[in-house]
C-alpha cells in the first residue's frame, strides 16, 4: 500500500468512527428503553427529528441563544417521552409485545407527517457555534461539528456506564430489567423506573437531534438515522450499553469503508446496503448480539 492509500484508509476510518459514535448515541436511547421496559421503540429516529426541529425553530424563529435552544429541546424530549410512556405505553403493559411495536410505528409515521403539515417541508439550518475550520487528524480531516458530536457521545457513554454500575438508582434499574416482579417485591417502584428510562432516552434523543440536525440540516430526513439503530443494536445486543457503543462504531466504519472502496465500482448505495447485510449475518450467527445478555443456563 502506498502512503496515499494508507491515508485514504485512515480518513475513512476516522470519519466512519465519528459518524458511528452518533449512531451509537442515538441507539443508546433505544437500548435504555428496551433494557428497562422491554419496549421496542420504532420511533427513535423520529424522536431525534422532533428534537432537531425544536432546536432549529427556537434558534431560527425564536431567536434564542444556542444554549437555551438546546435546553429547550432537552426539556421537550423529556416531557414528550415521559408523556408517551404514561399515556400510550403504560396502558399496553402486559399486552403482547406487538401492541407496543405497532404503537411506536404509528407514532413514528405521525411524527414524520407533522412538520410538512405544520411548518412546511423546507430544510432549516441549525448552526452551532463550533466554527467551520476542519479538524485535522493526520491524513483525515473532520468538520468540527462531527468532533463535537463524537465528544458528546463519549461523555454520555461514560456517564451512563457510571450510572448503571455505581449508583443505587442505576443498579435498581438493572434489577427492574432483570426481573420486574422480583424488583417490585424488593420495594422498587417499577413504573417509576420505566418513566425514568424513557426520560433518559428523551435526553439522549434531544442531544442526538441537535447534533445530527446541525450536521445534516433539519427536515424529515433527520429521522432516517433511526434506520441505523437496528443494525447497531442487533450487532451490539438490544440491551447492552457497551454494545451500542461498539455496534455504532462498527456500523459507522463499515459504512464508510463500503462507500470509499465499493461505491466507485457499483455506482453508489453500498453505504445503506452494508449495515443491513452485516445485521443479517449477525442474526444468523449471534442472535443476541456481541454483548447482549444470554439467558444464563446452569446445571
Amino acid at each position: 500500500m502506498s502512503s496515499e492509500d494508507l491515508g485514504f484508509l485512515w480518513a475513512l476510518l476516522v470519519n466512519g468512527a465519528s459518524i458511528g459514535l452518533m449512531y451509537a448515541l442515538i441507539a443508546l436511547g433505544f437500548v435504555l428503553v428496551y433494557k428497562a421496559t422491554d419496549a421496542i421503540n420504532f420511533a427513535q429516529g423520529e424522536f431525534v427529528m422532533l428534537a432537531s426541529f425544536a432546536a432549529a425553530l427556537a434558534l431560527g424563529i425564536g431567536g434564542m441563544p444556542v444554549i437555551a435552544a438546546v435546553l429547550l429541546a432537552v426539556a421537550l424530549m423529556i416531557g414528550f417521552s415521559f408523556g408517551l410512556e404514561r399515556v400510550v405505553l403504560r396502558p399496553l403493559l402486559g399486552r403482547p409485545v406487538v401492541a407496543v411495536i405497532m404503537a411506536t410505528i404509528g407514532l413514528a409515521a405521525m411524527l414524520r407527517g407533522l412538520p410538512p403539515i405544520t411548518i412546511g417541508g423546507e430544510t432549516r439550518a441549525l448552526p452551532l457555534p463550533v466554527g467551520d475550520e476542519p479538524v485535522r487528524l493526520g491524513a483525515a480531516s473532520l468538520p468540527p461539528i462531527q468532533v463535537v458530536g463524537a465528544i458528546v457521545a463519549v461523555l454520555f457513554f461514560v456517564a451512563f456506564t457510571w450510572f448503571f454500575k455505581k449508583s443505587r438508582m442505576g443498579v435498581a434499574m438493572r434489577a427492574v430489567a432483570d426481573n420486574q416482579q422480583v424488583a417490585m417485591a424488593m420495594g422498587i417502584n417499577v413504573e417509576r423506573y420505566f418513566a425514568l428510562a424513557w426520560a433518559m432516552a428523551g435526553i439522549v434523543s434531544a442531544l442526538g437531534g441537535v447534533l445530527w440536525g446541525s450536521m445534516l440540516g433539519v427536515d424529515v430526513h433527520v429521522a432516517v438515522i433511526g434506520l441505523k439503530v437496528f443494525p447497531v443494536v442487533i450487532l451490539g445486543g438490544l440491551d447492552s450499553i457497551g454494545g451500542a457503543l461498539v455496534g455504532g462504531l462498527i456500523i459507522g466504519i463499515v459504512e464508510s469503508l463500503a462507500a470509499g472502496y465499493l461505491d466507485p465500482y457499483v455506482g453508489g448505495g453500498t453505504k445503506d446496503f452494508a449495515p443491513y447485510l452485516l445485521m443479517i449475518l449477525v442474526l444468523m450467527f449471534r442472535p443476541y448480539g456481541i454483548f447482549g445478555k444470554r439467558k444464563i443456563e446452569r446445571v
Partner: protein
Amino acid sequence: MLSLNNIEVVYDGVILVLKGVSVQVREGEITTILGANGAGKTTTLKAISGVLRSERGEVTKGSIEFGGKRIDGLRAFDVTRLGLVQVFEGRRVFEHLTTEENLIAGGHTQREPRRVRERIGMVYDYFPRLKERRDQQSGYLSGGEQQMLAIGRALMSDPKVVLLDEPSLGLAPMLVEEIFANVQKLVKEEKLTVLLVEQNATLALEIARHGYVMENGRIVLEGDAEKLRSNSDIKEFYLGLNEVGGRTSYRDVKHYRRRKRWLS
C-alpha cells in the same frame, strides 16, 4: 402480627385457588405452611406480599392484616416498605447483577446509603460465602449460594416479617441445614418473624413453632409444631414421603389422597 382472615384468591377472574384461608403469624416466631405441590402455598405468600396482581390474581374475599393495618390491595413495593418481604420459590436472584448489586437492589427502600452498607455487612456476617462471591455475577452462583443471596437480599430492607417460599428446594441436605440454622439465628438475634412454606415437613417442623397444613386451597390441619410432628397423618403423609423422597412418590401420594383426606 400478620393475619390472614378467610381469604379467597382468584386468578384470571375465574380460577379459584384459595378457598377461605386463615393463618396467624405471631411475632418473633417461625410459622410454617406445609402442603403438597399445587396446594396453594405460593399463592398464599403472593397474596400477602402483593405480587399477586402482576400475575392477574386477586384477593376476592377476606382480609390480610399486618400490624393492625389492612394490606390486601396494596402494591407490592408498598408492602415491602411496611416491613414485609417475600423470598421467592426458586431463588430468583437478579442473575445479571453481581452478588453485591443484588444486595444493593434489595436495600432500595433504605434512605441512607450508610444503612445499605451496614446491612450488607450484616448479611455477609450471616452468610460469609456471599462475601467471597461479592463481585461474581449471581446467575453463576451455586443453588445454595443463590438461596443465601435471596434471603440476604430480602434482609436488606430491614424487614419485620420474611415470607420464605421453599428454601430447601433442590438443595443438598447439608446446605439446607446451614440455611435453616441461619434462619433460626436471624429470628433469635434480629427479632425476625418468619412465615415458612415447605414441602419438606420434617425440616420445617423442626424449626417452626406453629404449623398449618394446606391442601387444595384450604387449611386442613393446624397446631403447634410439636403436636404436628407427632400427628400420625403428618408422619405417614409427609415425613414418610420425605424418606422416600421427591417426585417419584408423588403419584402414590395422590393415590393416597384419594383414599383418605385430612379431617374426613
